[in-house]
């Protein structure tokens, strides 16, 4: 056992390693998958949250715009009801327009009351006011400082192709020396004639756009406006980044095919989520988009945290798995080890058996070879002996007793030869050297010949032979089939009683040719029956009966070699029956007959 212990142990270790590796692979895959899912879910959630936030901001923006619009609409209604405004517009007295609208416009441009600064509903606080005439052109005020100073190109951007029937939202990029670049939201509201209901003019006011994300940290959100290929993003100080973003946003937005969308951008190397929404669809003013950039650094930090959490969980899982593996391997490998040990024992036993078998086989071959050699070696001296005896008997000066004695000796040499031949045959069979060359044998013909030979035997036994043979063809080698029949018939005669009877039947039974040989005489006692086919067994018959105990054995071995068999059918009441069966010749089909 100590010799096989080392390989068993290494095998066991290997098994445990494999188990551990498999578990590691599974846990790594699970960890990876969980990580991927968590990352995706996080990103998705974050995007949805930001999107909600953006939509919320936009909604707030619209709310403020609605307030502005309502305020402006009220002003417009008041203006439209003023006969002096009508007069100025309809009676070609545009110079009187602004002075007569001064009160209303001052209301619009009123500086917000400090006490109302914190109120949630921001009042309209216009940065400038302008009228559009009936063709949509800007009416320049006689005294621009009162109505918000605009540069010429800024003012010209307020003009519309036609006088709008309803309010229009636009955005105006303004540049001033002191505050730099700003964007004003522009609301154009028509002034409808109080008598015809048609627009007779429009009022355009500029307001500071609502800053999105006012309540958030400035670094996490940046909002701005994209207008005519220009990005106004005051919270992003870096002009290079702004230019880069402007290019990116313009590339996405310029086709104007989607009113709102989001995409990812990198600002200062940090990924950001950029939302945009068309602020003034269907407006006569150029399209403007609200741009909101949300930093994803929060998301990245959270993802980082989750990554460590999951990795930690994976490590714990792996450690746990290691423990479990250790335990499980111990439990699992118990039977496995046992199995290995058992299988080792089995193998050893098998090896031993194989060795024994080989040894036996070799011995058998050697003994068979020895038998064959011996048989051959014996034949020659016997033949010499017989020839000598024959010569001796032919001598003239022999007494009749002496002659008789010599004749007996000669007969004994024949018997020896017969034994030798049988032994030779058996040893050939034992060595597996005997090959049958089957051909079609006419069994009834062969039987007749054997019966003739039988009756010619000079033993003086008065035995009656009956035969009832159908003509059958069997597959076999004629010489050996003859030998089988001869053995059986000789036995039937040998063990008969004087005045007895031998009955031979031959018939077809299915694919078999069945020959039964029955004879009168002493029966074979029950205990001897299982031994009668053994070599050199002669039953309980006395030594008075000639024979050497090889006949039945030879007959059975030969019959089995032919695919048939010899057995004892019955032995009782002065009647012993043996049966031998051979395979019938397969009736060849005409097609295969030629080949044979």
């Amino acid at each position: 056992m100590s010799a096989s212990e080392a390989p068993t142990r290494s095998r066991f270790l290997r098994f445990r390693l494999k188990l551990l590796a498999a578990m590691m692979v599974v846990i790594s895959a699970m960890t990876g998958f969980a990580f991927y899912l968590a990352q995706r879910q996080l990103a998705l959630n974050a995007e949805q949250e930001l999107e909600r936030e953006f939509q919320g901001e936009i909604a707030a923006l619209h709310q403020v715009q609605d307030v502005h619009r309502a305020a402006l609409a009220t002003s417009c209604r008041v203006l439209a009801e003023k006969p002096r405004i009508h007069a100025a517009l309809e009676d070609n007295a545009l110079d009187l327009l602004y002075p007569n609208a001064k009160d209303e416009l001052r209301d619009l441009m009123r500086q917000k009351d400090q006490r109302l600064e914190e109120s949630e509903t921001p009042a309209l606080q216009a940065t400038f006011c302008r009228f559009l005439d009936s063709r949509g052109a800007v009416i320049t005020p006689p005294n621009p400082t009162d109505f918000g100073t605009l540069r010429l190109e800024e003012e010209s951007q307020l003009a519309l192709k036609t006088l709008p029937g309803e309010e229009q939202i636009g955005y105006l990029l303004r540049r001033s020396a002191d505050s730099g670049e700003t964007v004003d939201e522009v609301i154009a509201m028509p002034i409808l004639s109080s008598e015809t209901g048609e627009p007779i003019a429009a009022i355009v006011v500029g307001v500071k756009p609502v800053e999105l994300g006012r309540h958030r940290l400035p670094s996490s959100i940046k909002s701005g406006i994209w207008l005519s290929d220009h990005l106004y993003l005051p919270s992003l100080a870096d002009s290079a980044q702004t230019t880069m973003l402007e290019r990116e946003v313009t590339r996405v937005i310029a086709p104007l095919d989607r009113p709102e969308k989001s995409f990812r951008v990198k600002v200062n190397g940090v990924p950001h989520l950029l939302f945009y929404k068309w602020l003034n669809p269907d407006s006569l003013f150029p399209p403007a988009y609200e741009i909101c950039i949300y930093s994803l650094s929060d998301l990245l930090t959270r993802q980082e945290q989750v990554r460590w959490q999951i990795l930690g969980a994976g490590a714990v899982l792996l450690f746990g798995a290691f423990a479990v593996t250790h335990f499980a391997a111990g439990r699992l490998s118990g039977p496995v080890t046992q199995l290995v040990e058992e299988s080792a024992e089995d193998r050893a036993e098998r090896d031993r058996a194989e060795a024994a078998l080989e040894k036996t086989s070799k011995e058998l071959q050697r003994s068979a070879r020895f038998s064959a050699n011996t048989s051959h070696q014996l034949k020659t001296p016997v033949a010499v002996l017989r020839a000598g005896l024959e010569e001796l008997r032919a001598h003239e000066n022999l007494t009749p007793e002496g002659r008789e004695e010599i004749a007996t000796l000669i007969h004994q040499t024949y018997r020896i030869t017969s034994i030798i031949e049988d032994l030779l045959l058996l040893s050939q069979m034992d060595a597996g050297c005997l090959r049958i060359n089957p051909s079609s044998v006419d069994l009834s013909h062969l039987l007749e010949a054997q019966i003739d030979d039988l009756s010619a035997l000079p033993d003086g036994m008065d035995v009656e032979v009956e035969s009832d043979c159908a003509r059958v063809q069997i597959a076999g080698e004629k010489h050996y089939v003859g030998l089988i029949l001869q053995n059986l018939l000789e036995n039937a005669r040998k063990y008969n009683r004087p005045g007895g009877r031998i009955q031979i039947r031959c018939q077809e039974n299915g694919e078999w040719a069945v020959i039964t040989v029955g004879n009168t005489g002493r029966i074979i006692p029950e205990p001897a029956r299982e031994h009668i086919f053994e070599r050199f067994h002669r039953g309980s018959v006395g030594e008075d009966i000639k024979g050497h105990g090889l006949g039945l054995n030879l007959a059975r071995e030969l019959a089995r070699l032919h695919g048939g068999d010899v057995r004892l059918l019955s032995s009782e009441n002065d009647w012993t029956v043996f049966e031998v069966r051979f395979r019938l010749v397969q009736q060849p089909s005409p097609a295969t007959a030629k080949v044979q």
Partner: protein
Amino acid sequence: MRGRLLLLLAVIGVAPTFSFAQAVIEGQVELPKTSSVPVVVKRYEVVTTRGIIAVKPPLAVVYVEGSFPKRTSEPPGKQMLQKDLNFVPTLLPVQVGTKVAFPNLDDTYHNIFSFSPAKRFDLGRYRSDETPIPSVVFDVPGLVTLRCDIHEHMRALILVLATPYFATSDSEGHFRLSGLPAGHYTLKAWLSSKTTLERPVDLSSGSTLHVTLP
């Protein structure tokens, strides 16, 4: 009532010519078709559609332009009443230099003003007991839109003409100009701030010309 007043005013405007001119033009101006159904109590109003000022239902002012002997006397004064929160008449033709008074017959304030290029003025708020009655001299030919700063619906037109010979048509467009001097003139019919029909006419003393415009 108002029709009769219009007629009266027309007679007043034409009266001074009786002494030395005898020609008469009478006829009809084809007034623009209006979709509004005729009302029983005639109530004219000034309507501005796409910048075109006209009276609705339509009325025409027919006048004769040409060179007339200059008169030394000022044209007689006219009145534009404010009555029942309306101007009466809605359309008043006057000769250049006419002084128009604006008596307030209502029991409330009115503030008559005009931003029209032909005459800009603002009478300020006044009541019916205001004395003297606020008045304005119209010294430039052209169309003057009158409004009240307090009552935005109140509108009226004063058509200032460089001729003493004019008349306002009735609602079917019929008109009559009498006491015209003989001579070669242009007959014009004002329909709106955009449309004025015209035709040359030859007048001989004592004749009556029948004209249909256009």
